[in-house]
């Protein structure tokens, strides 16, 4: 059973379009992270959200943590080819627990 479900698994859109990726769970997380991974490389942290309802922006990327801290979304405005990659959400269930649980990922392709 996957603790963190991401949807969609694959997404291919044209440059300039907007998109949203979702990360859902039945568990409550003390914090949730989004990573981006490019082929042949390790994941790189994009953002951490810790407060229910929190919204963080990173240029054209907007991250939101659900009010109940069970879900999160990543919205990209005016997608560019450089946004192509595997997006992973990860959550920490307990404060003081150093382990993260990762979702299965969304593979995003932006077509020029």
């Amino acid at each position: 059973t996957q603790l963190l479900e991401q949807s969609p698994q694959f997404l291919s859109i044209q440059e300039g379009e907007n998109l949203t990726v979702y990360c859902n769970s039945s568990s409550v997380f003390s914090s949730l992270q989004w990573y981006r991974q490019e082929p042949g490389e390790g994941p790189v942290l994009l953002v951490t959200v810790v407060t229910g309802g929190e919204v963080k922006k990173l240029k054209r990327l907007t991250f939101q943590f659900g009010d109940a801290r069970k879900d999160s979304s990543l919205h990209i405005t005016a997608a560019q080819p450089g946004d192509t990659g595997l997006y992973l959400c990860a959550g920490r269930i307990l404060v003081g627990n150093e382990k993260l649980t990762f979702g299965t990922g969304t593979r995003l392709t932006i077509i020029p």
Partner: protein
Amino acid sequence: DAGITQSPRYKITETGRQVTLMCHQTWSHSYMFWYRQDLGHGLRLIYYSAAADITDKGEVPDGYVVSRSKTENFPLTLESATRSQTSVYFCASSEEGRADTQYFGPGTRLTVL
């Protein structure tokens, strides 16, 4: 360069052989982690370590052994490799109390024939 490195980057071995994957970090981070990444499963935690000589099992530890005699190194050994251990292996590190921010190495692609 400072950071987290893994070696080798690619490895092909045969069933039953022992294989050791190396991980080295230069930040003196307390925590280090080993994950495997497989299609349809995402990243799954194999073992982690809170400090030198302190290790603990993750989600999928069977068939793997770790050690951490020095803070900067965290080798992962497959004692008798099986085909199901074909995967991409990632090492990561984080500061104590900062598990939210893990830094990943570039990965080792292991193929077991």
